């Protein structure tokens, strides 16, 4: 039995795992870089160990140091979260060698799913439909160009070791391909240490639909229905939902069985995701298996009632899955918005800093997984995801209405976030109808709509803003000494906005 788990991660997912551990009475052992010494996951863990400088390569990606720490702290198991070392087969194997349970698939399955090309070949054999593309890894741009030419533009450049949408670039012609190849290679190298890319046919008007699977060490495999993650920006998922508006019971059953088959083909263990693209005609194509817990796992939790992290731990300690496929019932509708610390009005530039007032949303059907708190810092060293807002509703429209509530209540002073974008999407007619595709943002010029809505909002609010300035200048006029004090305390007083002679 696992009685302590080292969490080889940070941010909201580390907190998520801590909450599951607590429910099970398991000790949570956190690790932290210099940058994270005051972070939420450190505060909430039972124990926390420093593992290195801010740069991920020297801390959260430092296999040797993390395993040493786990051993020293007496951790029975390691949960890798997502990102960082979560899909690193060497790490999984190293844990096993030290007698530490790795909460995730075995290294061997991970090697297979991590090698997108080999995995694709295996899927073909297992009668899982796959997407046309290069047969192997491509290291130079000329070869990439030849493959692209053969399968026809547009094509996608993907990191062979990537996942989660990182390191993916679209090329519509040779020029673009040559230009993007370098960027994609650099990103892949920065994120995963290796620059190897592969080329894949880019289908247009597609929807991203994935199936959550779980498999125990006795080979019991279940699928936990699908998630639709079509709302993306530059191949990064923005919004996920379950169920998909275009998947009915028949498709769910058929594709769920294919997902189970995919898991069996790689002798998968624990929780994983089988990702498909669905074209306009309703055909599904396998793209990859994500051999980890996904960012978007909460939407599946909300509609199935299962706790995926607790299920992961149960499977990791050898327990059998306790439910049959038929026991699972869809319960309502779930939507998740990823709240990133990026400025949507400035080309999504990263936004870092210390958070002031912080009020996260609450109320019926609302769940927030976040590491934010008043006084926390959002660092430029790591991912920009600062919160996930997950809502449940009896149906899609109730879930959507609740998401609007939650986005409105979300307050995190001091950083820019993608909330304005999500608000625009929630009000967009195509989104309301569930008419989604991976090019949804471009197709409907959502960013332009967002900017327009923002300008309207500012205009509507301008009289109140002017009133605030007038009121404060009046306060300052009547209490000049208070303002003076405040300025001495190195706070820039409102006084600066000027004086006037309004008699009241």
């Amino acid at each position, binding site marked *: 039995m696992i009685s302590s788990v080292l969490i080889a991660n940070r941010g909201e997912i580390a907190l998520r795992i801590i909450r599951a551990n607590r429910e099970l009475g398991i000790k949570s052992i956190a690790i932290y870089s210099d940058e994270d010494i005051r972070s939420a996951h450190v505060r909430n863990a039972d124990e926390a160990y420093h593992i290195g400088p801010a740069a991920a390569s020297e801390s959260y990606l430092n296999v040797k140091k993390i395993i040493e720490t786990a051993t020293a702290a007496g951790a029975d198991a390691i949960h890798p979260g997502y990102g960082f070392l979560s899909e690193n087969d060497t790490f999984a194997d190293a844990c096993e060698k030290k007698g530490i349970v790795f909460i995730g698939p075995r290294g061997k399955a991970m090697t297979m799913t991590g090698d997108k090309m080999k995995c694709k070949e295996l899927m073909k054999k297992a009668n899982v439909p796959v997407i046309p593309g290069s047969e192997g890894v491509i290291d130079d741009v000329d070869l990439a160009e030849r493959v692209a030419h053969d399968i026809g533009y547009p094509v996608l450049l993907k990191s062979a070791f990537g996942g989660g949408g990182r390191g993916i670039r679209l090329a519509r012609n040779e020029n673009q391909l040559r230009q993007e190849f370098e960027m994609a290679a*650099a990103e892949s190298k920065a994120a995963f240490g290796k620059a190897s890319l592969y080329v894949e046919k880019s289908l247009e008007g597609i929807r991203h639909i994935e199936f959550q699977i779980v498999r125990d060490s006795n080979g019991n495999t279940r699928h936990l229905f699908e998630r639709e993650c079509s709302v993306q920006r530059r191949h990064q998922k923005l919004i996920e939902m379950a169920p998909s508006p275009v998947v009915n019971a028949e498709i769910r059953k058929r594709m769920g069985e294919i997902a189970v088959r995919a898991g069996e083909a790689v002798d998968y263990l624990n929780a994983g995701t089988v990702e498909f693209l669905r074209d306009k005609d309703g055909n599904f194509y396998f793209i990859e298996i994500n051999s980890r817990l996904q960012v978007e796992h909460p939407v599946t939790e909300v509609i199935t009632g299962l706790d995926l992290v607790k299920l992961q731990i149960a499977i990791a300690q050898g327990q059998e899955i306790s439910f049959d496929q038929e026991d699972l019932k869809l319960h309502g509708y779930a939507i998740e918005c990823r709240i990133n610390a990026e400025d949507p009005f400035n080309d999504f530039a990263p936004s870092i800093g210390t958070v002031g007032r912080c009020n996260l949303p609450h109320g019926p059907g609302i769940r927030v997984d976040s590491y934010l708190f008043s006084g926390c810092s959002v660092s430029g060293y790591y991912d920009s995801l600062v919160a996930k807002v997950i809502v449940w509703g009896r149906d899609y429209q109730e879930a959507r209405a609740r998401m609007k509530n939650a986005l409105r209540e979300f307050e995190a002073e001091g950083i820019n976030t993608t909330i304005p974008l999500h608000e625009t999407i929630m009000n967009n007619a195509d989104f309301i109808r569930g008419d989604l595709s991976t090019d949804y943002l471009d197709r409907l010029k959502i960013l332009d709509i967002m900017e327009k809505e923002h300008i309207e909002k500012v205009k509507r609010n301008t009289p109140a803003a002017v009133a605030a*300035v007038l*009121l404060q200048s009046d306060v300052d006029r009547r209490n000049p000494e208070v303002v003076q004090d*405040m300025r001495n305390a190195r706070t820039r007083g409102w006084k600066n906005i000027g004086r006037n002679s309004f008699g009241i």
Partner: protein
Amino acid sequence: MVGKISEGILLEFKIGETKQEINGEIIHALGDGSILLRINQKSYEVRLVKSSADEIEFFFENSFHYVKKISSTSSGIMIVLDGVPITLRKHFKLDELIRDTSSSKVTTENNNLTSQIPGRVVNIVASIGTSVKTGDSIVILESMKMQVAVKSHKDGIIRDILVKKGATVSRNDVISVIE
């Protein structure tokens, strides 16, 4: 440039392509603790709830508002009203002449290419002495696991690149001089 005493505040704000001038003044206090304002000829009732150095809470037309002041310079003030950032350029009626000649906009049209984000320089794409067009990538920064290109803000020739590969830049740091 402390403004002269005047009868009201003239505020100017610009968002997107829209530019608007707003005239605001306090009319008088009402008996019940609320205050009457006039903004662009229209009267509004407000009620101050709380104010400190950088925060103010008030009712505006019976609706509660929370304002956080972000920055304030002699020519403008940036506030966040109920989560919406609003920038107002303020001047007094008697200062209008001064405003017209001291517009800060002209001076920002300069040769310095600045970074809009903090990050680590992972690649320098352009070279000194070469000519570039608006939108060409000059350097690549990495922040929050993203690769972000700092692109030229004008057509011209690169006179200088002020950052080195591996260096960390802050927001608004000058990256390059382009003439």
